[in-house]
């Protein structure tokens, strides 16, 4: 990408909300902060705002760099910027770290003003609905009554869908990418293994490890390694790593022998060094609990009846964690409600991770859709 298509150097802002927020679980957060970034300019009638919701391990840092020397840009820099599909010359784009996060929004690592200690294990379990409610407070704060679009991939797509249900009149378009109307049993199973890795790490201390000045690195590392296996397709792994060896010959040991292992260890270590275990537990739980059809006896069509937005649903052929069949369930329910909806099932090799990849056709579809979003 050329420099001219970058949003350049950015910095986050923090908004404080002093009105208590009652969560779906019944717990009440007396006050909270949300850290967010914006790109582009909000127009005079505040009609050009796009909210981009992040997935499991994402952040509010969507695009740009924090300094010229910053090595990596935000996590969706390939699609956001001047002239890019999410065109910052036209749109005012917002990224926000979700409640319970570990990148600046109020979460388990934050100090609980009532105790002057980190929330830790006492931080409530949050849901997709809670995130959307908190994001709506941010929208109010920014003077945005209705979003031109709310979008996201994976867990972010679930938030985009929830927006159309929680605040139907405040979303004109929803772009739901590589998502699902709920998790399959297999998906919950993966999340449970990841949580068990963390919960059984002796350095987790029931979630109050901050006081012990340790981090449950082993648990986080395992959780992330497992996650990475499921985000890639067998083919993509085969192509990227195959059976390539780390060294010229095998060493008959349990050190890294294969490139695949090296990749997983690297990803696991990196993640364990920067992500909060309590946040990870809550993010995976939010995924597990998301199920808008539950209150309608499993009838997704009935659940989506309140939605007024127009939809673009996108899935990727090799995504087995959030398979195209799951996206088609959303499409079917929207069709039954006669909502305006388009569905692109993109041929992609990268598995679930494909939603982050700069594929030409994928980006062309997003660009074409957003060009109609006034």
């Amino acid at each position, binding site marked *: 990408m050329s420099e001219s298509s970058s949003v350049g150097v950015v910095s986050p802002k923090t908004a404080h909300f002093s009105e208590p927020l009652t969560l779906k679980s019944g717990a009440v957060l007396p006050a909270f902060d949300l850290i967010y970034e914006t790109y582009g300019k909000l127009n005079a009638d505040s009609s050009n705002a796009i909210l981009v919701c992040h997935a499991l391990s994402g952040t509010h840092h969507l695009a740009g760099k924090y300094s010229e020397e910053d090595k990596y840009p935000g996590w969706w820099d390939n699609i956001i910027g001047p002239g890019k599909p999410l065109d910052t010359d036209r749109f005012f784009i917002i990224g926000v770290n979700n409640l319970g996060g570990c990148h600046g929004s109020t979460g388990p690592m934050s100090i609980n003003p009532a105790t002057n200690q980190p929330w830790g294990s006492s931080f409530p379990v949050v849901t997709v609905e809670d995130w959307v409610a908190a994001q709506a407070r941010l929208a109010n704060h920014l003077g945005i009554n209705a979003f031109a679009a709310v979008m996201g991939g994976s867990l972010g797509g679930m938030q985009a869908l929830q927006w159309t249900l929680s605040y139907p009149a405040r979303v004109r378009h929803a772009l739901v990418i590589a998502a699902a109307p709920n998790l399959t049993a297999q998906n919950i199973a993966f999340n449970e293994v990841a949580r068990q890795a963390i919960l059984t790490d002796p350095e987790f201390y029931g979630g109050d490890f901050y006081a012990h000045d340790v981090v449950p690195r082993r648990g986080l590392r395992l959780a992330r390694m497992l996650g990475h296996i499921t985000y890639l397709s067998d083919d993509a792994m085969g192509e990227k790593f195959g059976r390539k060896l780390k060294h010229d010959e095998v060493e008959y040991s349990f050190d890294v022998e294969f490139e695949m292992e090296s990749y997983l260890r690297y990803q696991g270590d990196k993640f364990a060094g920067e992500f909060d275990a309590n946040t990870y537990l809550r993010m995976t739980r939010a995924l597990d609990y998301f199920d808008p059809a539950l209150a309608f006896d499993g009838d997704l069509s009935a659940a989506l009846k309140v939605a007024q937005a127009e939809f673009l649903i996108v899935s990727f052929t090799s995504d087995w964690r959030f398979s195209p069949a799951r996206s*088609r369930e959303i499409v079917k329910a929207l069709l039954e409600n006669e909502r305006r909806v*388009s*569905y692109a099932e993109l041929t992609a090799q990268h598995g679930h991770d494909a939603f982050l990849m700069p594929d030409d056709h994928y980006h062309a579809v997003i660009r074409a859709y957003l060009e109609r979003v006034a």
Partner: protein
Amino acid sequence: MSTPNFIQAATERRDFAAIARWIAPKSKVLDLGCGDGSLLGYLRGALDITGYGIEKDDANVLACVKNGINVIQMDLEAGLSGFEAQSFDVVILSQTLQAVYHTEHIVQEMLRVGKEVIVTFPNFGYWKHRLSIVIGNMPVSRNLPYQWYDTPNVHMCTIHDFDDFCAGHSIHIRERLILTDGKPVNLLPNLLGSLAMYRFANTLA
């Protein structure tokens, strides 16, 4: 055998207008193999329909999104399992019949999902096609614009053939319209008609 674009466009509009006459305003319409969505765009403008297209080709899906047409990317050959019975007022298969493999299954699926079905196809019995064969070449025309080696068409049929198909599958034809250059043909339709249009429903419905 090239026809100027503006004549093609005018003929296409006449074909679309003929289809539109069979559809009630504000109907819920499903167009199978909708291409770039131009028929749905026309029907939306003319009749304020709620329309959805099904299309498998990436470039066509992108064109639909650009044109603001609701498009569902899927392969027709897999059937319409994501669609409830009798959930559309009209299901259209416009100039796509000849390109599908599982013809019987797709027609059955259309009858299941649509209260009414519209099928249009290029008449292989059209005299120009017959002449082409007599001369010794596979026909290439406005409605059959492909060379034999790169055609998506696998199940060509004549108007007689399709009449027989309907009779053999208990399909009750409500209306049939044969067009050449967008104009109705009443005399010797299987010989003089270039485009065949059928409107039918399940006999049970």
